[in-house]
């Protein structure tokens, strides 16, 4: 324990230039597809990185895939990556408990999806204990002293969605909004990003909602049906979180494909099907593989060389697929 603590304080104070007194060992392992960051040197003592994630929908599966790849990749660099599931309901209690446990287990670094504002109290505690911390995917507005955040800027993504909505409506008409869970920061950020963008750039767009669907496809289906009943001239539906395929299915069932479209998030199969069939007109992604992979490699590089990433905010690529280009992204939809 004392050894690690020593290292922790060291890295903190001296920006850890002299960690490797020996010649750093270099090996050249090809990056797996989807990874963007290369590991630089082999750690001279085994390093342990905790990757704290959730598991409740396919989005996390892609992150897990990236992280497991990273684990295999970094094995060659003498770093062990532990993929740890905090649970399946997203609550701050789950996150803080997992961080506490990671501190107890004396990891060298923690990569975590904090989601909630206030979790920084615990990540900062980890940093005080000499553990490097990086965030990914979603964090609150006050992220504390974590080294970096890798992920989508929810608000920026919302603005992008706003742009797409503007394009598809020609700046006039009605847009229905369905959000996941009220108060969930990432959902709210995406929602507000889009709403603010539309308010500013196309004041003629009328917003219906927002309605909470608790990430359920079935609820989104009902809400979309009802919105279309009350607003036959509805042009677009914006779904900020889970269940957009429900909205798409409602449009399909009402035979309104081509007249009403959906803008939503995450390249997961059930959504992509409706991109292909033309109800979802824009599907925004946030590079989940990279979030699982790059983050730990960055951490490894920091622990071995002391180099921090250039910016504290590493933006995940915001890909948008549309019915026109879905085949290029995902060959099986050709």
């Amino acid at each position, binding site marked *: 324990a004392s050894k690690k603590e020593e290292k922790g304080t060291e890295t903190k104070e001296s920006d850890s230039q002299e960690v490797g007194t020996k010649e750093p060992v270099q090996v050249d392992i090809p990056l797996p597809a989807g990874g963007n960051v290369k590991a630089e040197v082999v750690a001279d003592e085994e390093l342990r990185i905790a990757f704290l994630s959730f*598991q*409740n*929908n*396919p989005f*996390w*599966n892609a992150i897990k895939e990236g992280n497991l790849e990273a684990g295999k990749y970094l094995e060659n660099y003498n770093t062990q990556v532990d993929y740890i599931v905090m649970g*399946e309901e997203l609550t701050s209690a789950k996150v803080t408990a997992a961080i506490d446990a990671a501190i107890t287990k004396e990891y060298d670094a923690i990569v975590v999806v904090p989601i909630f504002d206030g979790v920084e109290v615990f990540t900062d505690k980890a940093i005080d204990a000499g553990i490097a911390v990086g965030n990914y995917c979603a964090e609150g507005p006050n992220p504390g002293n974590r080294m970096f955040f890798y992920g989508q800027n929810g608000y920026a993504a919302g603005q992008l969605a706003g742009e797409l909505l503007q394009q598809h409506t020609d700046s006039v008409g009605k847009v229905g909004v369905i*959000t996941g869970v*009220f108060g969930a920061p990432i959902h709210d950020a995406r929602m507000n990003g889009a709403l603010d963008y539309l308010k500013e750039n196309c004041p003629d767009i009328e917003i*219906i*909602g*927002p*309605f*909470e669907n*608790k*990430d*359920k*496809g*079935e609820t989104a*289906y*009902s*809400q979309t*049906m*009802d*919105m279309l*009943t*009350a607003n036959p001239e509805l042009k677009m539906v914006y779904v900020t979180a889970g*269940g957009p*395929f*429900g909205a798409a*299915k409602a449009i399909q*069932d009402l035979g309104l494909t081509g007249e009403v479209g959906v803008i939503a998030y995450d390249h*997961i*199969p*059930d959504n992509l*099907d409706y991109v292909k069939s033309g109800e979802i007109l824009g599907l925004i992604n946030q590079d989940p593989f990279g979030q699982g992979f790059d983050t730990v490699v960055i951490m490894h590089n920091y622990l071995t060389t002391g180099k921090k990433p250039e910016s504290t905010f590493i933006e995940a690529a915001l890909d948008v697929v549309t019915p026109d280009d879905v085949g290029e992204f995902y060959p099986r939809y050709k």
Partner: protein
Amino acid sequence: MKKRSTSIDSLKNLFRIREFGVLVALILLCVFLSFASPYFLKPMNIFNVLRQISIIGILAVGQCLVIIIGCLDLSAGTTMGLMGVLCAIFIGFGIPPIVAFVLVIASGALIGTVNGLLVTRFGVNAFIVTLGMQYIARSVALLITGGIPVKMDSPLAFLGGGYIGAVPMSVIIMGAIVLLGWLFSTKTLLGRNIFIVGSNEKAAKLSGIRAGNVKMMVFIIMGSLAGLSGIILTGMLKTAEPSAGLGYELEAIAAVIIGGTSLSGGEGSIFGAIIGAALMGVLKNGFVLLGVSGYWQMFALGVVIIMAVLVDSMNTMKSSC
């Protein structure tokens, strides 16, 4: 003197049935909405509302029976989710729709059986058994799918997404289940025994009723209905979401209680439960039609749930001098 009072009595009785208060609340809400939104009374909207309550409605029928025997089934929602997933998987295996249908209902019944066994043979509190089963069913659904929704393309989807004329198939099924549930609970021996066991289990046993078996049957019925609603849910979107269903059990319980069934067991009505489900369904539909802002929806839902029952309880209180 006796003869004169009967007609007044029956009128009084009509006003005293517990469903009545909620029915009034429902009608008032409908009247209000038909003025507030021109779309509310459109046949299409009415069928939409009915379709939206069909799943909760079917679960509420089962939950009503469970509550009458004095238990709660917290696993109904996630069991439904699991059954939806199983259905899609069975179809994916190429099992013929009818066989898949039967298998799913049987699996639901199996989960009900496990619940029932634990409650009746091992004496574990039903709340705990079904809470545990809630987690287990959900985790199994996630484990067998890896968390990924399963597509289902099969004639079976007609049960959830099909229409006969303008009437959604799921509404017809709900109607049938409500009718069957009512017949079952009022006309059959087992149905009667459910009330009796819920009212006083000890006395029921002394009357030669195998109370354990009766409870068991109720859990099995609940499980089968969860299976049925799982099929409908999956059919509606032609997709089975492994994490679907959580929360439905509470909504179904709320519907049952709003409909006048008492949590202490021995009393209750299937029709009441459906009225309760309809009240909440119409309310949610109203929110969307009127474009009520998100946070206020929740507020209104809370207030209406309480009010619906409040009217009723004040009535009961007054009538006793």
